[in-house]
């Protein structure tokens, strides 16, 4: 069993993965980092064990598990039990990298899990739904001319509504050549409305992308497809001649923008600024390009650091500054920033729908505890995946909180 898994993952090993299995000393520090382990106590969820299982599966491809060497390396042969453990180790992980912070050597289990997921899909083990959405994102560019008209029609309807509700001069422009910024939204209008209001208030000439920022191929460790999906956005930005690509409140997509685009596109994007809407909004506020009614919210609220935006991209202070600008009753979660608990729904697990629902709720337990301790009524975050998971946790555990985005707060407090 697992022949295709072993062959694929061997081919996809990068240099760090090659030494992870050699140098991990199994000190166990990472066990305390994992929300899935904290909630389930299932040993397959100890990050070091995830690594060991991959190593043992690779060795198990050739060995029966009956020799002394196999005993020493704990190779048991690749049977159905091994496949089940591997499935848990590689799919029941949000790639939040909290364990990498706990690891004395900074070993990044998330990196290995990415490659492992891709290899698992070659065995048809795991939620294929995530990969299918990824494929749709890749092929969207090929059919864009057929769906464009419908999309533009929808944005015009949205624009008309916002003119009535917000300001008569607000615009939601698509394919706006020479615009300053290309804003890449998410599916649905929730990510477009606050951004449109902020761009309007800042007097920024912007353009709404035809694509969405989400990149599900990235979740399943398929670098080539992840690049292909992101390429449509880069080409659109280059065609329009914008100065900056602006990503929405979406963790994993922003992580690709900050940490992967350079490796994928190199010189092609040398002149393009790459920013997230949250730090950009903070910049507008600092420069006085937008004005907000100070301290308009006195509801008790807290901020949840998204793993991709915080630990992996360093966006810690900008969202807090924005919240402080408009809210008076802020409560910090403990721990926070680099050591913040994952929401339990990252790594594309939301897209796996029913398959992973129960597991997501279990993995969200540390987060539920954290939110309850703050006593906050609003939970603010800057990642769509976190928002969806927090909504689900809210309902499932009857937290009685409201989940909001950072830019939602700002958009509601804008002076125009």
């Amino acid at each position, binding site marked *: 069993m697992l022949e295709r898994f072993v062959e694929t993952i061997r081919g996809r090993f990068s240099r760090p993965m090659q030494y992870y299995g050699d140098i991990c000393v199994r000190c166990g520090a990472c066990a305390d980092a994992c929300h899935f382990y904290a909630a389930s106590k299932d040993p397959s969820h100890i990050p070091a064990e995830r690594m*060991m299982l991959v190593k043992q599966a690779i060795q198990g491809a050739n060995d029966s598990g009956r020799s002394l060497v196999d005993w020493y390396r704990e190779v048991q042969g690749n049977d159905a039990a091994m496949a089940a453990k591997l499935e848990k180790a590689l799919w029941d992980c949000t790639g939040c990298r909290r364990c990498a912070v706990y690891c004395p050597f*900074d070993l990044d289990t998330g990196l290995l899990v990415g490659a492992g997921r891709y290899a698992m899909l070659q065995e048809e083990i795991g939620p294929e739904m995530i990969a299918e959405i990824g494929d749709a994102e890749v092929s969207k560019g090929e059919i864009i001319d057929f769906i464009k008209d419908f999309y533009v029609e929808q944005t015009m309807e949205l624009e008309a509504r916002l003119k009535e509700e917000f300001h008569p001069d607000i615009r939601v422009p698509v394919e706006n050549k020479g615009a300053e910024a290309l804003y890449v939204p998410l599916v649905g209008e929730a990510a477009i409305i606050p951004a449109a209001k902020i761009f309007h208030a800042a007097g920024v000439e912007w353009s709404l992308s035809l694509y969405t920022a989400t990149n599900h191929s990235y979740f399943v460790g398929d670098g080539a497809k992840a690049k292909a999906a992101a390429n449509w956005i880069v080409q659109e930005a280059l065609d329009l001649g914008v100065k900056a690509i602006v990503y929405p409140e979406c963790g994993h997509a922003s992580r690709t923008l900050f940490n992967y685009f350079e490796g994928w596109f190199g010189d092609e994007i040398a002149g393009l600024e790459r920013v997230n809407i949250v730090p950009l909004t903070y910049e507008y506020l600092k420069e006085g390009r937008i004005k907000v009614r100070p301290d308009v919210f006195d509801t008790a609220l807290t901020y949840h650091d998204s793993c991709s935006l915080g630990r992996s991209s360093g966006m810690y202070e900008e969202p807090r500054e924005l919240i402080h600008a408009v809210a008076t009753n802020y409560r910090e979660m403990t721990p926070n920033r680099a050591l913040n608990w994952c929401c339990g729904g990252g790594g594309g697990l939301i897209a796996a729908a029913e398959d992973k629902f129960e597991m997501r709720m279990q993995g969200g337990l540390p987060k539920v505890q954290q939110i309850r301790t703050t006593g906050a009524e609003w939970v603010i975050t800057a990642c769509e995946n976190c928002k969806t998971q927090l909504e689900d946790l809210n309902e499932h555990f009857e937290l009685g909180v409201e989940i909001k985005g950072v830019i939602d707060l700002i958009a509601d407090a804008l002076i125009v």
Partner: protein
Amino acid sequence: MDVIEYILTYITPYIAVIALLGGVAYQAYRWRQKSPVAAHLSLYPRPESRLGRLGDALVDMFTMKGLFTVNKLLWVGGFIMHLGLLLLILGHIRVVTDFYFLWDWLNWGEAETHTFSAVAGTGAGLLFMIPLFYLFFRRFGGKIKILSTPEDYFVLVLLVGIAITGMHMRLVSEVEQHPMRVFMQGLYKFDWQPLPESAGLSFIWHFALVQLLMIYFPFGKLMHTIGSVFNKMVMRS
């Protein structure tokens, strides 16, 4: 017995050195076969400048500050054990040469250096050995037991064995330092000298276990010595 002693003192030391250097070179080659990740894997917060990040990696390496933040008990065990090991390695330089300039500067004679080396050596030995017992026994409970593989126990037993035989040489059999230096220098000058009278069974065991450690070093978790340094830079790039 004489044959085994002969082999362990005049033949296997060379094999151990070759295995250590060759093994590390082979592992480095094996790691380099794979291409680096074409993405930034940085964990934040991190220093802005390149030099700052290098400094941060080095500080983290020498103080284990990352582990201190998340697991104080394990930090105490891990840090003190490694500190003891570092001191012991420094002290063992005296097996082949001496810190003449240091003793001159301190104006210490034979008696003073001998006392210092006895006190410091015993102290470093205890710093090394006591945490090893903690690190060993914690592997018999809970999640660490599940995680542990035979290798983890083997390496710890090996290190404890080296520590105990070393302490025995220092405290019980009181191996004389100068004749030992003559013998060790003979090994690397290929001018073989007889084992000193005072070197008893504890020396043979100590010497043999260290050679086993050297041979094993490149092929197991002990490679974290080298790999962790690389990885700390990768995770700050």
